[in-house]
């Protein structure tokens, strides 16, 4: 029996037959910008994990004889206003920024996806109430919301992450709900109900895996957004507290000495941009790899 196999089916077969996560990674890496993003993210993660090994100096050690030193062989990026090694501080700052970015997006995603699943699946009043609450949250500009939250909770890393999560879930809730509304009408959901699958199992086992693709893309892009927000909040003095280093914090202090030591601002700025852009590129790559329509368009010229 010969079958005409659609080109997208071939890709799907290769994705399905091997390790799906690995196959997906391979598909993303084929996207040039996403490959660049993956490399940068991998490097940042390695830097964050091995910060104590990679940092040439203790990031908290002050040397008041060498404040705002220009780059030299001893201090590759120079020193800050208290004579601490800027490179070491940025390396340690990677930990904070990545941690905040990844953890707060994951927490937002878990809350938001759960809320969106329930709203979309239950429909009716439950849906209406949940979505109006979501709308109310979305009316606040993110930065103002986070500033207000910080004012209530007080500054500090945990509180910043908490306020990100409290704000960020709305995006996932909307996205998940929209996807659920599409998927729940598909015949295989009715088929699952017809064999007696209970509602919660339909939600988590039959619907959730089918809406993962756009969620994965959103999580990736949100990580970049959260890193940017953390920098912004730290820049305003609400994020990490001294002497802890984060990219946004360094940028803020460097900003004061912009004329004396431009690299003090430029270096953390470059780190922030690099990280945010990388996560966005990977998000784009993921979307292209996961969307069969785009995949078809890229592979078979029509």
């Amino acid at each position, binding site marked *: *029996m010969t*079958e005409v196999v659609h080109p997208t*089916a071939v890709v*799907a*077969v290769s994705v*399905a037959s091997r390790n799906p996560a690995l196959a997906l990674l391979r598909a993303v890496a084929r996207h040039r910008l996403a490959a660049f993003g993956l490399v940068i993210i991998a490097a940042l993660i390695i830097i964050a994990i091995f910060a104590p090994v990679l940092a040439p100096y203790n990031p908290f050690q002050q040397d008041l004889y060498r404040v705002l030193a220009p780059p030299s062989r001893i201090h590759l990026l120079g020193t800050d206003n208290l004579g601490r090694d800027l490179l070491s501080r940025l390396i340690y700052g990677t930990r904070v920024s990545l941690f905040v970015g990844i953890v707060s997006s994951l927490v937002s995603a878990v809350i938001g996806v759960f809320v969106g699943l329930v709203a979309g699946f239950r*429909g*009716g009043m439950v849906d209406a109430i949940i979505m109006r609450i979501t709308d109310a949250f979305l009316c606040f500009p993110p930065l103002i919301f986070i500033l207000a939250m910080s004012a209530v909770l007080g500054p500090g890393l945990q509180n910043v992450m908490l306020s990100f999560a409290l704000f960020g879930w709305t995006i996932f809730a909307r996205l998940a709900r929209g996807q659920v509304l599409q998927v729940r009408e*598909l*015949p*295989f959901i*009715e*088929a*699952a*109900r*017809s*064999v*007696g*699958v*209970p509602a919660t199992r339909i939600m988590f086992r*039959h619907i959730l*895996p*089918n809406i993962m693709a756009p969620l994965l893309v959103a999580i990736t892009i949100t990580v970049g957004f959260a890193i940017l927000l953390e920098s912004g909040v730290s820049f305003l003095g609400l994020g990490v507290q001294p002497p802890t280093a984060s990219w946004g914090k360094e940028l803020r202090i460097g900003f004061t000495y912009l004329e004396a030591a431009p690299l003090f601002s430029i270096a953390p700025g470059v780190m922030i941009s690099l990280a945010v852009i990388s996560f966005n590129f990977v998000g784009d790559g993921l979307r292209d790899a996961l969307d069969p329509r785009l995949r078809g368009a890229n592979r078979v010229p029509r």
Partner: protein
Amino acid sequence: MAKGAGEALLCVRNLTVEFATEAGIVTAVDGVSFDLHAGEILALVGESGCGKSATALALLRLIADPPGRITGGEIRFRNQELLSADDATVRDIRGNRIAMIFQEPMTSLNPVYTIGRQLGEPLELHKNLDGDTLLAKCVALLESVNIPEPSRRLQSYPHQFSGGMRQRMMIAMGMSCDPDIVIADEPTTALDVTIQAQLLELLQAQVANHHAALLLITHNLGVVARYADRVNVMYAGRIVESTTADEIYRAPRHPYTIGLLRSVPRLDQPISEKLLPIEGQPPNPLELPSGCAFHPRCPFAIDKCRTTTPVLTRDAGGHAVACWVDVRG
């Protein structure tokens, strides 16, 4: 276990299903009553939109609410009333005692799970099977519907199966818990003509092996003639004629049934004889004609047909028809 011979496995009485649409309320199923006896094949025939699928879905309380709602009637399965039963009871019957095979094998399978996981789901839920027992049972099931290399095929994803294979798999899944009743809603409509016959043979053999009753929903009169024991003909949400499959071909009594039969080619008919389509269009479900819904298209219609809805009346021979006119001869 042994019951009176007259006791049907499934009794449907005055089943009414309504759908709320933007234009108003549509009564998709309007007072449908029928019995399904153990081991028989009952066909539900009618054109698109006549309410046959809604009837099937209502039997398992699968009507999406909103927009649909079962507004009246009774469904008794083994003396258990299903419309008033709690959700857990109904869930326990679905896929276990009453199985359903859908029209669209292409979309009735979840694309992210392997065939094996989906085939095993009813067994997991209703028979508490897992691990090797479940695997062995799944292999046996796929084998019973003639899918080659069953143990390897369990690892496949739905998109790697052809339409025919998917519908075989759906049949295997329907049979997995040894149900008393299988509801097949146009099981072969989406498939190639050459595969349709094969699949119906398979379905017939499978229900016979499992001593299950089959409610076969179709618009294909050829399928009815070949496989069904009894037939219910539906028009505009009502059963208009109900009798044995032989009788419906030999002596149809409802003008709609007669029209349907005239519009299909038959081998025992001289070629010179023309196929006669039923005049007019199926009625708009929002504005059903008064009286008998078929009267605007009916060549035999009398005044009474326009004003009063005929009731389904059964004669001594068991042939029931809802028509004011005796069109025999």
